């Protein structure tokens, strides 16, 4: 069954920001995300560059983290769900 995908479009400046931030991932790290996707750091960066579904999700996660900082998410405050 297809499920509705809410895809937020981000501009290039956001993409560049996320790419810069992803560089801090350790090499040798693998991320399991989505249904069965496992990506190395290099593959993750490429997926953001390509604008794939996974790349979009990574951008969403990164922006959610950055936006949560002002709400105190690191100290246990819960902000509204996205």
């Amino acid at each position, binding site marked *: 069954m297809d499920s509705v995908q809410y895809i937020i479009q981000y501009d290039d400046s956001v993409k560049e920001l996320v790419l810069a931030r992803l560089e801090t991932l350790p090499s040798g790290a*693998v991320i*399991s995300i*989505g*249904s069965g996707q496992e990506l190395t750091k290099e593959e993750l960066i490429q997926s953001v560059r390509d604008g794939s579904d996974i790349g979009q999700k990574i951008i969403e996660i990164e922006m*959610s983290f950055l936006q949560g900082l002002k709400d105190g998410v*690191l100290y246990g405050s819960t902000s509204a769900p996205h």
Partner: protein
Amino acid sequence: MARHLLLTRPGHDYATRYLSAWAEKFFDLAKNKNYSIIDLYHERANRKEVESVIKKRDPCFVIINGHGNDDSITGHENEPLLMAGVNSSLLTGKIIYAISCRSARVLGKEAGQYVDTAYIGYRDDFILLYLEKHRTRPVEDKLAELFLNPSNLVVTTLLKGHSAKESVLRAQQEFLRNIQKLLTSKTKTDDSSALRYLVWDMKNLVLHGNKDKKLS
């Protein structure tokens, strides 16, 4: 009367192998609490076996390790096991913990509407970070531990007799503890890269249904 715990442990990719390996960490506790563990390992994590076990053995606690989407959770080779609008009613009266992507969004909501049912899961992608060098020895992976210890706390809290709500709260607190361990000036940049994914998983762990339900 014996209490049954049904657990699926697929192993067709590294992520499911990690989930499956880390799931063994609560086996001793479950046995000490007099649970009979029905362990559907690798190929046995299929729909036919899951449905059969639920119908015949009536487990009070169902733990699904695997992948998923909004309306289903999957087993070995990503075979759908439980699906909204198809066989989710099998979960009536149970506590379910699904370590899979997004199933709390539709399947979990549907299951939570059944009488005396509690569905714990993730309403978006469950992210797991691990180190390639530990792929063949998942339980030694300190990076994966940051994600899977909090996840396991859902299970151990329930096994100790606490409510579904308490199990989610304790798991979220453990996520937060791991997050805060990575925030001090002693932490290296490499290690703190896991932060955004820990925050993501912590925020997306949710409960539908009877929040006060405990394992009987």
